[in-house]
């Protein structure tokens, strides 16, 4: 129970800081909308080819800007030295990981909903039940993306080229969830094939469980020194 409270307080602290500074929120949202606008101008939004490619466009807009938040989440801790403050406290480092993960994940899901709304407008999708399934995919993809991303963001937080290094380390590992996200979205929005969607979701759930557990276990070594 105490650990659950600690996880919430750690996450709440990050969310409060982000709410007050709005640095990551505004830059992430701006970057994502910019991606959608560029694709919108590059392709004819009414064509079948664009419709087929639109799940990929959506996930590029959802995941690439997410890197900004992951980098920010540890950059500020290192710059202000507060990472040392947490590491010096008796808090279990796995609990610290879950707190950071939760803050990053809540942030990502909140911003993803705004990006999804922009996507629906730019690519002429109608509001339907299918979008709820895309929301569920966003929640599941967000867990895996943030679990892996939080570990790597902590690893590179003391490195000068962290902004470059984080996506290079992160994206190869999350290829399975990118594939599941793009294909799952295509099945929902274009083909209406829910049996295939559920198979992709099973893959996402397995990925999420494995990498959340791995993050919890290895975080002690990641922030140890």
């Amino acid at each position: 129970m105490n650990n659950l409270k600690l996880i919430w307080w750690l996450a709440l602290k990050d969310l409060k800081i982000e709410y007050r500074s709005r640095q990551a929120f505004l830059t992430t949202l701006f970057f994502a909308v910019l991606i959608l606008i560029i694709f919108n101008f590059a392709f004819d939004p009414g064509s079948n080819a664009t419709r087929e490619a639109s799940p990929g466009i959506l996930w590029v807009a959802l995941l690439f800007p997410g890197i900004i938040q992951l980098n920010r989440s540890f950059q500020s801790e290192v710059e202000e030295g507060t990472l040392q403050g947490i590491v010096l406290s008796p808090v279990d480092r796995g609990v610290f990981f879950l707190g950071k993960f939760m803050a990053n994940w809540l942030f990502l899901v909140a911003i993803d909903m705004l990006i999804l709304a922009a996507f629906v407008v730019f690519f002429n999708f109608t509001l339907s039940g299918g979008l709820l399934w895309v929301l569920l995919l966003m929640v599941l993809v967000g867990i895996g993306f943030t679990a892996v991303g939080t570990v790597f963001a902590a690893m590179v937080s003391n490195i000068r080229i962290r902004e470059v290094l984080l996506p290079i380390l992160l994206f190869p590992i999350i290829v399975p969830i990118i594939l599941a996200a793009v294909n799952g979205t295509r099945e929902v929005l274009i083909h209406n094939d829910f049996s295939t969607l559920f198979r992709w979701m099973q893959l996402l759930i397995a990925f999420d469980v494995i990498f959340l557990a791995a993050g919890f276990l290895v975080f002690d070594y990641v922030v140890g020194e």
Partner: protein
Amino acid sequence: MANPSLPLVRLTGLTKKFGAVSAVRNLNFQIHRGDFVAIFGPNGAGKTTLLKMVAGLTSPTSGEVKFEGDRSARARAETGYVSHQTLLYNELTGRENLLFYARLYGLDGGADLADSMLSRVGLAEARNLMVRGFSRGMKQRLTLGRALLHEPRLLLLDEPYTGLDQHGSRLLTRLLGTLRAEGRTVLMITHNLAEGLELSTRVMILHRGKLAHQARQEELTRSALENLYFEIVER
């Protein structure tokens, strides 16, 4: 229950190397309860590395630091650390910062504790201001409040006078004097020989990673310490 005959901290053969460079070389000493140890030394003498190893932030290359004969992570909960950085969140208020740390240390009545600590370090009126707007002196006092919040049995101070004006230095000296009078165990790194000597019960001079000299405070006058210090570092 802790054995009072054991030293609070014991350093044995403590060595830290960064590649081919030895920052700390084979340090052996003990800190007893109630000791206020001031460590002097020029830049690069290994003082900060030593403090980080005692705090558990850096692992020694060889040797060990034992807290009451124990090497476990329990020592983390018993140590307060003031480093070059404030370890404070600029986007939180002074009170929110202390409340956050109180929660990390699992302290009951965190809000009351935070308020009383803010009063103790003279920041009660500024408690709801963002740390971003604090002066260097205010930040340093809040940093000390953060480090003392969980009533640590060992306080580690790394150049706490850095960046403080005369008024801030005086306030800090007063606070540290209170800690000494309370019988707290403190390990302080400072470049300020006069302040360090006045506050401490024991002084050490670290040079090129080695313990060059140590003495009880009453064995040294200010001028004797200055002469000794410059003799060692200019050797």
